C-alpha cells in the first residue's frame, strides 16, 4: 500500500468547502507551508476550498501560511490557543471585522481534545480553565473533592502535517520541536496529508523510532527542501512566494 501522491497539487485536490482542517505546527516549527500554499494556489485557480475551519495553536504570522489562508478569505473559523504572533495583523483584522470566528482553547486542552478525537474518547474532564471564562457553558463535575471541566473531542476532515521522514506506508518521524501537535492531528483527521522531507521504502524507518504509525496517514508527498515559515517571515516574504 503506497500512500505517495505525485505532487502538492494532487495532495490537496480533494479538500472540500466547509471542512475542518487541522494544521500542524507551533509558530514556524512544523508548519507545512508548502501544503498550505498549495491549497492557496488551488483557491486562486478555482475559488475553492473556502469556509474552512482551521485548527492550529496559532492564527498565523505575517502574510504566509495560516495568515495567507485568512487573507485569501478561505477561513470561517479558527480554533486555537494563542492567536498572537510577531505579526498577527491579518487575523486581528479578520477577527475585529467579524469575518473570522475564534474559538479560544487552552493549549493543553486543545492538545487533549485532538488526541481524544483520534483515540475515540468523546469527552474527558480536566482541571484546566475551571472557574474561568473559557469554561463558561461547559459541564463541571467533582472528582475526589476537586472540580473539573468536561471537554469534548475535536476531530477534523483533513490534517496537513510536516514530517521529517516518511516511508511509503505513512510511518513518520518529525524534526525536533516541529513534532508538537502533528502526531495528534494525524490521529484525529479522516484524511491526513503529509509533506515529508524524504520518503523511504517501507522498512526504511526503524520500527522503534516511528512517531506516527502509518495507520494514521492517508497521503504523503515529498518536499525535499521545505522552507521554514519562520525564515520566510523574517525575510518579509508573503504569499505568493517569488519563484
Amino acid at each position: 500500500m503506497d500512500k505517495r501522491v505525485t505532487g502538492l497539487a494532487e495532495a490537496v485536490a480533494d479538500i472540500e468547502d466547509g471542512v475542518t482542517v487541522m494544521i500542524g505546527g507551533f509558530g514556524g516549527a512544523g508548519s507545512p507551508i508548502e501544503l498550505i500554499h498549495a491549497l492557496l494556489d488551488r483557491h486562486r485557480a478555482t475559488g475553492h476550498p473556502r469556509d474552512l475551519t482551521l485548527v492550529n495553536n496559532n492564527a498565523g504570522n505575517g502574510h504566509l501560511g495560516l495568515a495567507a489562508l485568512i487573507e485569501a478569505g478561505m477561513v470561517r473559523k479558527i480554533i486555537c490557543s494563542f492567536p498572537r504572533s510577531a505579526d498577527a495583523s491579518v487575523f486581528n483584522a479578520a477577527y475585529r471585522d467579524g469575518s473570522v470566528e475564534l474559538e479560544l482553547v487552552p493549549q493543553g486542552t486543545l492538545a487533549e481534545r485532538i488526541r481524544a478525537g483520534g483515540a475515540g474518547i468523546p469527552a474527558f474532564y480536566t482541571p484546566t480553565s475551571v472557574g474561568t471564562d473559557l469554561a463558561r457553558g461547559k459541564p463541571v463535575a467533582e472528582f475526589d473533592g476537586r472540580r473539573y471541566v468536561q471537554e469534548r473531542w475535536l476531530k477534523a476532515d483533513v490534517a496537513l502535517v510536516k514530517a521529517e521522514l516518511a516511508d511509503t506506508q505513512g510511518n513518520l518521524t518529525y524534526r525536533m520541536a516541529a513534532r508538537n501537535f502533528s502526531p495528534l492531528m494525524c490521529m484525529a483527521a479522516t484524511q491526513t496529508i503529509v509533506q515529508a522531507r524524504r520518503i523511504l521504502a517501507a522498512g526504511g524507518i526503524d520500527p522503534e523510532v516511528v512517531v506516527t504509525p502509518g495507520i494514521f496517514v492517508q497521503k504523503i508527498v515529498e518536499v525535499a527542501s521545505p522552507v521554514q515559515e519562520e525564515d520566510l517571515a523574517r525575510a518579509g516574504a508573503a504569499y505568493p512566494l517569488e519563484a
Partner: protein
Amino acid sequence: MDKLSNNQIAWRAAQDIADGAYVNLGIGFPEKVAQYQPPGRHAIFHTENGILNFGEAPAPGEEDWDLINAGKKAVTLRPGAAFFHHADSFAMVRGGHLDVAILGAYEVAENGDLANWSTGPKGVPAVGGAMDLVHGAKRVAIITDHVTKDGQPKLLRRCTLPLTGVGCVTRVYTSLAVIDIADGRFMLREKLPSLGLEAIQRLTGAELHRDGPVADLIVPEL
C-alpha cells in the same frame, strides 16, 4: 453433515479484506485469517500489545519473546512495522482506525450483539481487548462454527451469555453460511450449496432473511 473447516471459514473471511486494510485478528482461531490473503493483497495486521505490520510466526527456535502478538505467540516484523505503547494501540482501536476486526464468538444475536468473553459466573473471567475492538473497528466480523459442539445454534435472537458488545457485529462467517446483520436482522448472503434453506434455518436460533439471491459459499480444500 457438510460444513467448512476452520481453515475454510478463515479463508472465506480473508477474501473480504481489501489490499492495504488495517486488520485486527482475535487470538486463536481468527489468527488463521492472515494465512489466506488473496495473492497480491497485503493487509496490515495490528496487535493490541503494540505492533503494526507484524508477520507470521518465526521458525521454531527463532522466537523472540519480546516480539509477540496479543495471544502471546511469537511473531515477526514486516517492512514498515512500528512499535507503540498500549494507549496508542487502543487509540487505533477505539478511534476507528482499524478497517476490520475479526473475532470468534460464543453467541451472536440478530441485533448485532456479541458474546465472546464469558461463559458465565463460574470460572475466572478474562476480557482482554475484545470489548474495545467491538466498538472500535469500522467493521466487526465474526468467524465461528454455525452451532456449538452440542449442535445448539450460536446465532440467536438474543444472546444469553454476558455481552462483549451491543449491536456491533455486521457480518458472520460460519461453517455453513455468510450472514450479514442489518436493521436487527440476519440477512443470508451465502450458504453451502449442499444445504437447503430450511436446513440452515433449523440450525439458526433466529429468522434468516433474504433480500436477494443467496450465493453459493464455495471455498477451496484447505
